[in-house]
């Protein structure tokens, strides 16, 4: 690792913690951001000559604090305010030695994911303030122009200040719902990196790793939350398959056709360990159930040898916790594998009209019809799915399923 890469890694790792400490001290997002930028510029110059300090986080916090005080003093002088006499605003000579920075990242996470901010803003703000991703990187990841993203972040910071969005861990009566929102943001960041097949590969991988890193931080800060561990387990287990999801041509590879020898064993092992820790807390939830499903896939030597009966039962549990079309369609797949395509089709028929516009419904229906020998209806379902799907990689995958059926029909 070159010195520049090392500095960049430190910046990313320390960004959220230092920024959180600054916001806690000065209660001002913009001032904290500006002061941290000053400190980062300063660090780039100083560390190249003097080497990286023993505790870079403390170094950055101390320098940024001084810069923030300088900025306040400058403004205070301009306004001829007495603020400059505030004893709180003096430099502490021993600050440089301090190794303990109070960890305020949890408060920062809850502020960034406050429901009064739009979901896309919550995601961008979390990546920027806690993940230390630059505006340029976030804009690229979400395929929006950089000025648009910069404006979105600036508006969010203004709203936090002007609308009085609190900077704290929510009180106990609000905590469950706010924690759910926070986990949802982390999972969205992960999925943005995992599911999208278009865009820039390195930045997509970065999103997956960042979501996993944020979730680890959250576990360290809230060790008693079973669902937070469930989410980490789920992401690790998904991530273990990331390298086998696309072939050389960039085409999507189904779970059943992936090269299981290339799945990341260490991520699977850790995922299962974390899931066990979550289950031991005896507070079940949808992330833990999804992680359990994913772990059964991860442990199976082949698609056929997968424990589909247990997976079908877990999907039933999941459907009770969070009823949705996605869950029902996945349950139909598992039931079809466990008990045959007819049983899977029966579940799909039960969904009625509400599934008509949902393309995965037609994908699964087409596959089950094909497997039960109803080729004409299968072709119709594939065509319906292709018409509804707007992801090019998935569409071409469907076309490759459909072509042999049409050829078989014309022979």
């Amino acid at each position, binding site marked *: 690792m070159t010195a520049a890469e090392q500095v960049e890694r430190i910046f990313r790792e320390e960004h959220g913690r230092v920024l959180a400490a600054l916001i806690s001290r000065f209660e001002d997002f913009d001032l904290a951001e500006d002061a941290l930028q000053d400190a980062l510029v300063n660090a780039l110059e100083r560390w190249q000559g003097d080497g990286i300090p023993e505790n870079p986080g403390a170094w950055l916090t101390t320098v940024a604090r001084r810069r923030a005080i300088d900025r306040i003093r400058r403004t205070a002088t301009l306004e001829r305010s007495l603020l400059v006499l505030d004893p709180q605003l003096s430099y502490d000579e021993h600050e440089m030695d301090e190794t303990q920075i109070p960890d305020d990242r949890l408060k920062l996470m809850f502020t960034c994911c406050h429901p009064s901010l739009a979901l896309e803003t919550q995601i961008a703000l979390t990546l920027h303030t806690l993940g230390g991703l630059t505006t340029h990187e976030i804009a690229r990841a979400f395929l929006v122009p950089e000025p648009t993203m910069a404006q979105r972040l600036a508006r969010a910071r203004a709203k936090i200040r002007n609308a*009085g*969005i*609190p900077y704290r861990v929510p009180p106990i009566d609000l905590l469950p719902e706010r924690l759910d929102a926070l986990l949802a943001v982390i999972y969205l960041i992960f999925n943005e990196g995992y599911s999208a097949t278009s865009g820039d590969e390195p930045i997509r991988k970065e999103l997956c790793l960042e979501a996993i890193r944020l979730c680890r931080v959250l576990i360290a800060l809230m060790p008693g939350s079973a669902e937070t561990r469930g989410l980490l387990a789920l992401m690790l287990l998904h991530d273990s398959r990331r390298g086998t999801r696309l072939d050389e041509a960039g085409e999507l590879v189904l779970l059943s056709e992936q090269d299981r020898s290339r799945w990341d064993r260490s991520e699977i092992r850790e995922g299962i360990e974390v899931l066990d820790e979550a289950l031991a807390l005896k507070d079940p939830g949808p992330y833990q159930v999804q992680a359990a499903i994913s772990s059964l896939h991860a442990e199976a030597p082949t698609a056929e040898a997968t424990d589909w009966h247990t997976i079908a039962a877990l999907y039933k549990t999941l459907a009770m916790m969070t009823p949705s079309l996605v869950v029902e369609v996945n349950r139909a797949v598992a039931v079809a594998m466990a008990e045959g395509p007819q049983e899977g089709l029966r579940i799909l028929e039960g969904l009625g009209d509400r599934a008509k516009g949902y393309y995965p419904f037609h994908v699964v229906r087409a596959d089950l019809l094909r497997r039960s020998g109803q080729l004409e209806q299968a072709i119709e379902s594939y065509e319906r799915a292709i018409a509804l799907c707007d992801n090019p990689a998935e569409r071409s995958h469907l076309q490759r399923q459909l072509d042999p059926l049409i050829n078989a029909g014309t022979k």
Partner: protein
Amino acid sequence: MKYMLLMYANESAVPETPEDQQAVALPVWLALMEEMKAAGVLLSNNGLSPVANATTVRIRDGKTLITDGPFAETHEQLGGFFLLECKDLDEALRWAEKIPHAKYGSVEVRPLWSAVA
């Protein structure tokens, strides 16, 4: 911080409140105001008469234009407000949830500028 809680509802969807309904509704409002007073957050509140009674004034190119009705035709109309002193947005949102309009209309929570300075 001072927050204005603006209450919106579709006036025509709830036209005339029947006597018995009002008898149920009124204690709800009174209880809410008592609760706000007891918590020390209530600065002011009032209801607006229907938009049918509204007149809008605009000055364009130096000419005053006076028109009948609200500033814009919207699905839900402003029907009243609460002005509250709260410590942060979460506290203001909690009060907004208790306002009956939240159930059949909307409550918009807006901080006052003076609270920012």
